[in-house]
């Protein structure tokens, strides 16, 4: 059974907002998430930890402590005042057992369960790399960083290694015909 990490607390056709069950319990940037059933696939593109109640700003508490752990141990209420949320970019969904790289007709429901996408599904999904266009054109200021993170995790889980990056690069280069610097920066960092 795949690991459940949270549930949907906001959704539009492109971006999902997820509240994680654990404080600091977000999967890493660029991770594939599986949302609801039949699953919608989304990629973690921004993680943030913030006060549950926006009207109660966080205060600095560390003056008299030596370590970060000490702060949390002595302030057990923090676990209930703070929460970790993330934005995930929708990149496809499963339809009749097939994985398609399109936006779902309607976004998942609020409270839909969010889990880390099983590696087998990720591998199947990333046989096709058209989805990288969603990432590149997400409009997020971190689009390239998310791309790099995603390529790094996917390629480390695939046996092809460089061959995968080569394929990805070919798709990306079509999207970025006029921007060799951006392409080379992504590909270089995907292999660091």
């Amino acid at each position, binding site marked *: 059974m795949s690991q459940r990490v949270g549930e949907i607390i906001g959704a539009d056709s492109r971006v999902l907002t997820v509240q994680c069950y654990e404080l600091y319990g977000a999967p890493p940037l660029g991770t594939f998430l599986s949302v609801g059933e039949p699953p919608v696939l989304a990629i973690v593109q921004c993680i943030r930890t913030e006060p549950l109640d926006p009207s109660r700003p966080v205060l600095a508490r560390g003056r008299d402590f030596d370590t970060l752990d000490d702060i949390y141990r002595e302030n057990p209420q923090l676990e209930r005042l703070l929460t970790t949320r993330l934005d995930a970019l929708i990149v496809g969904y499963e339809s009749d057992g097939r994985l398609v790289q399109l936006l779902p007709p309607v976004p998942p429901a609020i409270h839909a369960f969010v889990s880390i996408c099983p590696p087998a599904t990720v591998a199947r999904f990333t046989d096709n790399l058209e989805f990288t266009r969603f990432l590149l054109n997400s409009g997020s200021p971190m689009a390239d960083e998310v791309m790099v993170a995603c390529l790094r995790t996917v390629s480390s889980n695939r046996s092809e290694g*460089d061959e995968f*990056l*080569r394929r990805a*690069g*070919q798709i*990306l*280069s*079509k999207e*970025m*015909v*006029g*921007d*060799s*610097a951006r*392409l*080379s920066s992504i*590909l*270089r960092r995907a*292999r660091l």
Partner: protein
Amino acid sequence: MTNGFSPYGTNGDGFLHRGTPLGTVVGGSLSDGVEIRLNPSGETVIEDVKVGTFVTIQGKRYRFFGVITDLELANSDSRIRHSPPDSDDPVLLEVMSGTMAYGVLSVMPSLALPLGSAGGVSPSAAKTVPSHFSPSYSATDDDVASVFGREDDQHFWIGSPLDMDTRVCLDLDNLVRRSFGVFGKSGTGKTFLTRLLLVGVLQGGTASSLIFDMHSEYGWSGQDTDRNRHVKGLKQLFPSYVSTFTLDAESSRRRGSSPDEVVSIGYSEIEPEDIELLKDNLSLSDVAAAACFNLQQRFGGDWMSQFLTHQGQGIGDLADDLGVNRAALGALHNRLSRFRRYPFLEEGDRHNAAAKIIEHLERGKHVVLEFGRYGRDLNAYILVSNLLTRRIHERYVALKEAAEGGGGKDPRPLVIVIEEAHRFLNPSISSQTTFANIARELRKYNVTLMIIDQRPGGIDSEVMSQLGTRFTCALDNERDIDAVLSGAAGSRQLRGVLARLEDKQQALIFGHAVPMPVVVHTREYGTPESYASLTRNVKAGLPDDLLEGETSEERLERQIDELFS
């Protein structure tokens, strides 16, 4: 390049598509040719593609044929030039090449064949360009054959396209219809190409040839200096169709050639205009050269020997008498005296070499005039070629005019072959020479020229423009390249092709004898197999009545001879 396998099947026009496309059309124009972007994922990298290669483009209505005229390294992001990817990053290099950085081929689509046309229909000049994204392929053997025809009596195999084994054939009828030229710097294969062309003319059977063989390399045998061996001349290959004449019997004998006739020329056959042509070579002033006409007026036909009998003071007196400058006449005398050294020049007027040559030509023979040691003397070569050509031309004009008036039949078409053509046809003298007249009057009198030259830039452009077909081996002088390409369709594009010909045995051919410009690796000449294949078609191809004046017994004897020789 591979002429791949894995046929894609036929496309309704009867052609097999072999292999994957080289690339697709992405731009261009009718005047500049089309641009083909090399396939990014294809097996072909730009280094596999050579300028001058023959390609086809599969349009929506036509199949186009063309040659690659240029190659370009293009990019979609010019920053690549300034900050190329690290060379130690193979993935990045691989990803960028073919996508952001890619190859572009420039192709001149010269011919087009409507899709779906029946076999046997030949392509015609392209009046449009293939549409965007039409795939382009390296040409197959079938493509070459559909453009250049299959080898037969009237189609002479001259060579193969670059990197292919197929045969490019010349249309012999179109070849001899107008004057043509063979150009190339020294050692590039002009002589070998000329030998092949002469065999072609012989095989075509419609024209005779008269070769002024400067270096005595076409008649009996020639040198392959690179391979250090002898190659056979026309007479050895086609003994019954070729007559050899010589100016230098001794040299012919030494070389194992037994000439049919030894040529001698009478002083009285030399005309003032022959000397006019030699003006530059003899460093004669205009005045001195013009004095010949005064001399002829004074002494008549025998002016030259009469003039040469004058000595010392006599020359001065003669000058006063004729009213020409003394020094000029002295110089003329001095130069003309050198002619005394030519044993083939004789007194008297029983020589008539021209008539003998014509006699052989009219019997359908091809005549090679070997110059022997006089080939090294440009004056002798120019004098004799010009003199004989003038007489032969006069005779042809007379015959042709008689035929037109209903008296007798047309003279058999004649191709006159000269080397160092720029000496006869340079702009300063060409207005006066017989050769220039022949080039200009086209085929009016059934005489055309084949000119061989390493300095085409020195030839009168008006004469160049009359050439129907041009064969050019490598040239490196800009002026020569300009001259050869002047007036050719797509000359700007052909320039790139010509500039990159290999130094030997490669030629660019364009004009009447080929439907489109093509670069060939010239057919091998000089091996036993090459002789066998060259003679094969001729035996089958010549009309029976070729050798006029031959009795049927003679013909039988000849045919038996040929079977066993």
